């Protein structure tokens, strides 16, 4: 199995971005601020701030989330 703790942090964030329009809006406006209180590693935080879905997928982000977040999806 992949390391599950890290996978959880990345994927629960992806899930919130998909399912919570208010959080997505805050993230879109200011990604660093929206993530400030979240327990992420620096590579995870940087990948999200850069909206680098390929990197997020490499870090354990589930493909179907990476491909379906409104406005942020990789195609």
């Amino acid at each position: 199995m992949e390391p599950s703790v890290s996978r959880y942090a990345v994927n629960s964030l992806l899930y919130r971005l998909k399912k919570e329009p208010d959080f997505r809006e805050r993230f879109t406006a200011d990604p660093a601020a929206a993530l400030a209180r979240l327990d992420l590693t620096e590579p995870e935080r940087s990948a999200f701030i850069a909206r680098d879905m390929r990197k997020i997928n490499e870090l354990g982000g589930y493909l179907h989330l990476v491909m379906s977040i409104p406005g942020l999806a990789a195609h």
Partner: protein
Amino acid sequence: MGKIVFAGAMSHVLDPEYYDRACGAVGRQTVEAVMAEIARMGERLSARKPDALIVVADDHLNAFSFNAVPALCVRIGRDVQRMTQDHAEAFDKVLEHMPERYPLHEDLANAILEQGLEAGFDLALSWEAPVDHAFLSPVNTMHGARPIPPLVPIWVNCFVAPQPTARRCFAFGQHIARVVARSPWNVGIIATGGLSHFPELSLPRVGETDTVFDRKLIHWMERGEHEPLLELTTAELHKAGEHEFLNWMVLLGAVTPARADVRYFGELRRINMAAVEWSLP
């Protein structure tokens, strides 16, 4: 005595717009061709007047997130709602314009669940989980404007490791067949997803398929040789992009040793499309 009167399995993103965007005109043509076969399968299903339709499919981290990911889950209750997604992207878009609620066959769902627990299957249950494209795209394509029979949605965890084994999924399908046989109902069953796509769930590998692996699976299904399929490992399925074949394993358990008739197989860069129906006694 109840009977499985129809069994079919098929790809489940049935959206010409999606494949047009992803693969161009050939994507549109391929999905339209498989959809035409699936619609014909739906006509044969309806002609057998099923009391219920069991749909074995997977969640795409929509219904179940990170509070619980059940290996096998039976949806109970009176009806099920379509997943809603604001500003839907990609495969979520196909849900738009579909009916929002679908009646369930409560008695069959409860029987599969209760008798399953008694038989040693530690099944999860849900009263609330919504269904995504994996359920509704095939169901609506099969029925068009005709009424949809009461559904029994069943989820298999195809994506979140560790998944149930192919052998366990098959055994669960055998359980479903026993429940149906003891019931008074005529039942249709479909499994959805696949065939090969998204190997290793890796974004750079989106666009790769494994046609050799698909043909191997088809070969065994056509001959009703299900033993080799029981040996498939989660790691093999992950590597080949055959994650959703676990849904098909449940169906195979329910109809074994019936032989498959391939109604459609089409190679596409992004996914190999299939529609398969089983010849039932």
